[in-house]
């Protein structure tokens, strides 16, 4: 029984299940399971029923999965199952989500929930002309850890062993080594720099992404959008610092030529960072839907008639409503419809650049440590 086994068999799938369990409550009442519904139908019986069924499935089957993982870990060392338990948990959540979504969509279409409603899109131009300031200062912890790691590497370089471990098995035993070069020695620093840069870029892009405002209360949702951007950016930049700490802990052991990786100092900062992001997401809700709006924020003089509802944009959300593709839309990042955060617009050619950049990161790391 090792920390690695506990992590892959119990902690990781539990994190997946917990996040998926919370997702329906965080996504906002007019987007149950990624289906756009008018505010008047958020209490429809089918939605309550599907929400219950989803929780029952995740709670029941998820508990079995986690308990089985715990049992196997206690029973004896198997070397861990890698990502398999997490993937099983993910498949379970996906099945529950798709089932609920299909049922709600069917009733929505059959009963014509959007018929006769004034489908509206609302924009607060001040979000563009007076945009929220990016919290650059919060990038300091990540950059500090990066600098400390780089300096430590430079200082330690002469005394590092001639062969450095470049890969570890699931249980944390080194199985690949490479000769000491600048590339193999400083791979963790490069990983830190790339990761920090990618997270900074993504969060900066979220500040340019569109706000999905509720046409019935545009000023209030614009306020929540601003707060949400700030909170998520701070949480993600602190997550970057935490992952950089994990990489510093890994680098420390690699540079000492440790044959067995001690996983606890690696997992603690990463889990703390993940907990911080999940906590921020739970407190804020998607697009800041749970952030309280002060009384001074009114809906302005241009408040639309009560008949205005958010337009039904389901048709742009393909493959179970998980992917957004709209060629007419110049947006790069759009708010997700299930869970917290953003997703890319697959209809925008520039999305390909972003995906290549992010997918290229592990490939580049692999080449560097070969």
């Amino acid at each position, binding site marked *: 029984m090792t920390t690695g086994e506990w992590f892959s068999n119990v902690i990781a799938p539990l994190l997946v299940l917990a996040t998926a369990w919370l997702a329906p409550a965080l996504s906002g009442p007019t987007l149950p399971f990624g289906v756009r519904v008018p505010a008047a139908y958020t209490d429809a019986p089918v939605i309550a029923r599907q929400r219950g069924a989803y929780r029952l499935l995740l709670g029941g089957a998820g508990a079995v999965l986690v308990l089985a993982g715990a049992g196997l870990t206690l029973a004896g060392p198997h070397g861990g199952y890698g990502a398999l338990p997490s993937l099983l948990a993910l498949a379970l959540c996906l099945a529950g989500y798709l089932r609920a979504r299909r049922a709600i969509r069917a009733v929505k279409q059959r009963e014509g929930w959007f018929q006769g*409603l*004034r*489908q*509206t*899109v*609302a*924009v*607060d*131009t*001040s*979000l*563009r*002309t007076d945009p929220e300031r990016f919290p650059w200062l919060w990038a300091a912890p990540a950059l500090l850890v990066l600098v400390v790691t780089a300096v430590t590497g430079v200082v330690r370089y002469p005394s590092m062993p001639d062969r450095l471990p470049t890969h570890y098995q699931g249980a944390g035993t080194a199985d690949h080594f490479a000769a000491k070069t600048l590339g193999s020695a400083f791979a963790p620093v490069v990983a830190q720099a790339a990761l920090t840069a990618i997270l900074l870029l993504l969060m900066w892009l979220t500040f340019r992404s*569109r*706000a999905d405002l509720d*046409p019935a209360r*545009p*000023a209030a949702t*614009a306020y929540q959008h601003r707060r949400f951007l700030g909170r998520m950016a701070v949480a993600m930049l602190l997550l970057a610092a935490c992952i950089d700490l994990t990489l510093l802990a890994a680098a420390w052991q690699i540079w000492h030529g440790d044959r067995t990786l001690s996983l606890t100092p690696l997992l603690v900062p990463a889990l703390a960072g993940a907990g911080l992001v999940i906590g921020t997401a739970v407190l804020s809700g998607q697009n800041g839907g749970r952030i309280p709006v002060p009384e001074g924020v009114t*809906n*302005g*003089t*241009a*408040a*639309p008639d009560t008949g*205005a509802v958010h*337009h039904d*944009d389901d048709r*742009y959300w393909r493959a179970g409503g998980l992917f957004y593709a*709209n060629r*007419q*839309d*110049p*947006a*790069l990042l759009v708010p997700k419809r299930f869970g917290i955060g953003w997703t890319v617009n697959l209809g925008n050619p520039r999305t390909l650049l972003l995906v290549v950049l992010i997918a290229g990161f592990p490939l580049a790391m692999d080449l560097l440590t070969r």
Partner: protein
Amino acid sequence: MILSIDLSGDIPIYQQIRDRIVEAIASGGLAEGSALPSTRQLAADLAINFHTVNKAYDQLRQEGLVRVNRKSGAVVQRDARSGPPTAQFTEEWQARLRTLLAEAVAHGVGGPAVLAACGTTLASFAPEHAADRTPEHAPGRTPEHAPGSASDPGHLTADLGEPA
């Protein structure tokens, strides 16, 4: 400024963008020198093709309400306080007003009702100004007429009187 676009109606989106911006200038939500989002930003916010926004901005530019710079983007060029309208504008606007009033009369909306509607609409553009100005007017005039003084009350009364 909150911009609400109705996607289920028959009015083209570019027309709605143009109309909402004109209304925002009238109500003081956008003043001379106020920045507007770039065409791409506004298109992304509305999830529409940026040519549609371009069309609206181009129309506003031709009307002299917005100027579009390569460097500073789109900026509101004039508002109610920027001085009197051009003669060309007044002429074109009166022609459109004539059609609009003819519609009301053809559908049986009476003269007083038309004037009351005009007064209410004008008041909605600048409610606080309307309240300020009411005492200036002679007794006997209905309060709805008061905001008319924001532009040119003489003009308005003359034009409205005709079809009624």
